[in-house]
């Protein structure tokens, strides 16, 4: 009797099987494989499995404990929902990539040692990039390429860190990283890249909006949350993370307010929401860690829901900019409804899932007497609500009529959104099962009058401000793709004027650099290219000369003494 089957194995087999299937057989497989994985997850018992020796190193393929199970569960759930949502897509490469990607993410979360983690970490990158490329546009190819390069760098950092860690401690077990020196920082840096912690976040807002409509669901759920898991496992209580996390919450919100592409807005909110988790990890108290885990769980659900809503709009209208959309609620009422459930969840409205997890982290900050962090975390939901619950909803579904007359999204999309919306609502109303899943025992009740009032006040006044200032907050079509790429130093509250100055400056500098790079590349090509000096077929005489030179120099050393 085999007591442990790795869920990733099923997923990889499924991914390999898909190209061989056609039509309805493939569709069945798309649903059966995630369902099978969910069933398998339900049977997982705590413990360590799949241990073996490789090159004298003890590796553990499956470590099941409370912390990993939180993530395993939600990954399994979102995989099923995402697959339902993607059922109509007839592209086996995307589906295979999604299954492989989920398998890699599960493998990374279950990895009991750093080397296994590294392997799955890289696998995640290689599989997920296809979800971007299969969009099939030139922009998405380039965005995917940049995504690949950044994560390749992250992978190298991780590998280097792992090797040094192994060298200093002699162990590969993945627990809290307690050594100092380069191992600590290299691994942390690699995790931070995947968690999109500024200033290493740019890949996320660049790549996710260019992904395929269905691929974005998986992307938004898996990569950053795997990174959150590794941070929780390896770096709980690192104060730097707390500050970076708090900054992230505001950073993402501010950028989101300025964006125009609906999925870019959502992508920036991933950064903001992951900020809560990173902040919770950094605080490192029992409650904060619980909050981070809970928030990862709820976040995956409502963020996927939002991406599904936005995806449905793009799928039905072909447009993705706020300035091109408007008045869709009449034609896509269900999408609008589900989207709003997601929007209320992410904003942390009472009765929705965000409320029960987000407030946990905020309260952890206040119980830990961290005033500034508390205020920063309190402030961010206002921005979140403003851009997702109000701005995006208003300019897409309500507001002025754009003249678009799309039909309602296909049934499978609606079903997937419905399931996710139901879960968001259910967790918000009855959070006990979620709390039971968390790594530490929970002694927390979000529904006390103080918290509810605090959140409601904040959000309702945000709403009031929005409608008073409606004229000023809309998306500006002038915002181009380039501008999302600027890295800023200190001040994040940039006005459009500063923004334009930076854009033109940035463009100018880039042009200058490109000119230099091009001329260099030209030089390199002419020197080392096909007929360059090194690559030329040398005449026999000069070959013999090299031989003579080498012999002479060796003899010189040998005979001299």
């Amino acid at each position, binding site marked *: 009797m085999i007591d442990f089957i790795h869920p990733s194995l099923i997923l990889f087999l499924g991914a390999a099987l898909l190209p061989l299937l056609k039509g309805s057989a493939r569709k069945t497989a798309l649903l059966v494989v995630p369902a099978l994985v969910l069933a398998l997850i339900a049977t997982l018992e705590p413990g360590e499995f799949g241990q073996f020796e490789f090159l004298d190193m003890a590796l553990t393929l499956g470590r099941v404990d409370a912390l990993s199970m939180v993530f395993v569960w939600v990954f399994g759930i979102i995989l099923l929902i995402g697959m339902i949502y993607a059922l109509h897509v007839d592209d086996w490469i995307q589906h295979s990539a999604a299954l492989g990607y989920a398998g890699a993410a599960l493998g990374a979360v279950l990895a009991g040692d750093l080397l296994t983690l590294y392997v799955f970490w*890289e696998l995640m990158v290689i599989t997920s990039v296809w979800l971007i490329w299969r969009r099939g546009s030139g922009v998405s190819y380039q965005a995917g390429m940049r995504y690949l390069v950044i994560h390749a760098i992250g992978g190298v950092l991780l590998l280097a860190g792992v090797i040094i860690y192994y060298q200093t401690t002699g162990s590969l077990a993945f627990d809290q990283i307690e050594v100092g020196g380069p191992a600590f920082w290299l691994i942390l840096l690699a995790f931070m890249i995947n968690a999109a912690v500024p200033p290493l976040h740019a890949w996320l807002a660049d790549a996710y909006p260019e992904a395929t409509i269905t691929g974005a669901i998986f992307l938004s759920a898996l990569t950053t949350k795997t990174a959150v898991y590794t941070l929780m496992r390896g770096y709980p209580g690192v104060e730097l993370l707390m500050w970076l996390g708090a900054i992230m919450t505001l950073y993402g919100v501010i950028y989101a307010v300025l964006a125009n592409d609906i999925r870019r807005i959502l992508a920036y909110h991933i950064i903001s929401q992951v900020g809560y988790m990173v902040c919770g990890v950094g605080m490192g108290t029992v409650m904060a860690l619980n909050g981070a885990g809970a928030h990862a769980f709820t976040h995956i659900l409502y963020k996927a829901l939002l991406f599904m809503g936005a995806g449905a709009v793009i799928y039905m209208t072909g447009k993705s900019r706020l300035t091109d959309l408007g008045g869709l609620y009449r034609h896509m009422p269900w999408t609008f409804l589900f989207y709003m459930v997601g929007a209320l969840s992410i904003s942390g409205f009472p009765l929705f899932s965000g409320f029960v997890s987000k407030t946990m982290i905020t309260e952890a900050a206040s119980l830990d007497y961290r005033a500034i962090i508390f205020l920063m975390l309190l402030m961010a939901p206002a921005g979140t609500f403003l851009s997702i619950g109000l701005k995006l909803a208003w300019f897409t579904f309500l507001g002025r009529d754009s003249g678009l007359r799309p039909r309602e999204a296909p049934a499978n999309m609606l079903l997937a959104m419905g399931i996710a919306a139901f879960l968001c609502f259910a967790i918000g109303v009855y959070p006990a099962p979620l709390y039971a899943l968390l790594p530490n025992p929970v002694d927390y009740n979000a529904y006390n009058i103080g918290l509810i009032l605090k959140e409601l006040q904040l959000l309702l006044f945000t709403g009031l401000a929005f409608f008073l200032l409606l004229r000023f907050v809309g998306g500006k079509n002038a915002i181009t793709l380039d501008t999302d790429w600027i890295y800023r130093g200190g001040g994040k509250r940039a006005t459009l004027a500063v923004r334009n100055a930076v854009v033109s400056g940035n463009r100018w500098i880039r042009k200058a650099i490109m000119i230099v790079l091009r001329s260099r590349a030209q030089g390199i090509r002419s020197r*080392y290219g096909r007929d360059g000096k090194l690559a030329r077929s040398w005449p026999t005489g000069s070959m013999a000369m090299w031989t003579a030179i080498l*012999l002479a120099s060796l003899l010189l050393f040998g005979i001299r003494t």
Partner: protein
Amino acid sequence: MNIVDLMPFSVLVPLIASAIVALLPGRTLPWAVTFLAALISAIIAALTLPAATEVTLSYPFGNWPPPIGIEYRVDAANAFVALLVSSMASLALLWARTSVNREVPRRQGPFYALFLLALAGLLGITMTGDAFNVFVFLEISSLATYALVAYGSDRRALLAAFRYLIMGTIGATFLLIGIAFLYMMTGTLNMADMAERLPEVRDTRAVRAALAFIIVGLGLKLALLPLHLWLPNAYAYAPNFVTVFLAGTATKVALYVMLRFIFTVFAPDYSFVVLPLATVLMVLAVAGMFAGSWVAMFQVHLKRMLAYSSVAQVGYMVLGVSLVTTAGLTAAFLHLFNHALIKTALFMAIGTVMYQTNSIKIDDLRGLGRQMPWTMTAFALAGLSIIGVPTTAGFISKWYLILAAIDVQAWWLVGLIVLTSMMAVVYIWRVVEAAWMTKRPADLPTVREAPLSLLLPTWLLVALNFYFGLDTRLTVGAASAAADVMLGAGLGGAAP
């Protein structure tokens, strides 16, 4: 018949078979006999390896006791190399049939006879315990190889073979001069005996000069930068089967002989002291890693690209040697084995492409991923191995090389290894991008997937790459045994 008596037949069977094959008519018969001979030789080598790992085996020819007679002396190190060479030859022959039928349409007898001579020569170099015998076998294999290269259908093959001939002869001459110096000073040609007598005359200039000559001579055969200049053209224009075979074996054997001389004949506490050998080898290795990868990134002709990549890979092996530690030598032996697997697989894939399309310019590969998916996938997977992605054989050797570098606190070497691996990503990716990411231009012919007789051996090699990336018992065990022998008692030690 015990294993010691069986051992010489690993060399003798191909040698004798070559005379027979030369006279055989037709196409099927020469190939079949050749394959049989290579297979027998591989089986004998496989039987020898476990025995040789335990004790050093010695077989005196004609019952003349060494040091007077010629002796075959096999320990963990050369048994490992012999197994590699003979099994690579057998695997290459599986692939050869179809490819050679195209490139050598008539009278294949002499062609396969030359191949068997080259194989016998390489195995002879590996197994013999006699310094002069090394030279003789080196010449046998080299002369056969020159002729094999000249069989290439491209007219440039003649020039490449000629250059290879000139350079190879210079290398062999240097080796001969070195051996002659040693003979002059010690009065013996048996390597073990030589190792015992050398300490008496160690402080003479003749012995130092001998070391220098031998290293440069073998460096040429090894294609160590800057002595690699013969290699790209020879590999590029030789018949595909010859390239496949040479890439996996010839430079490996040269490296083994060099190690044998540096570590066994001259002890490491001699050779690394009188000459700044560690520094020289390290500098040349790193330069080779860089220059090879660098040029490979810009090559248009894919066989040349892989040839330059070989120069870089030789750099990795020599780098391991230059650390002069057990870990470093283990890495060198591991890469010697793994690189043979990788390069053979890559050249097979490229050879298969050439068989179907008659071109291996990178531009002519555009969009080929859809028309020859199995071939190109095999290439990409073998490419992963040369990059050093985990679960491939290439990863294992790079991993050990990195550990060896860390052992001596040479962090900068780790950086360089990673950097050159990134360069490997570039040159492999160029092919992948051309094959899959671009549309096939209308003016290029539509081709079909290659025949199974080419695909199956290629995939076998690819599978081996992954097998040895996961199950490292054989490779790591044999490589560390070989490294121990080299650094330990070696030939001078106790033997029955």
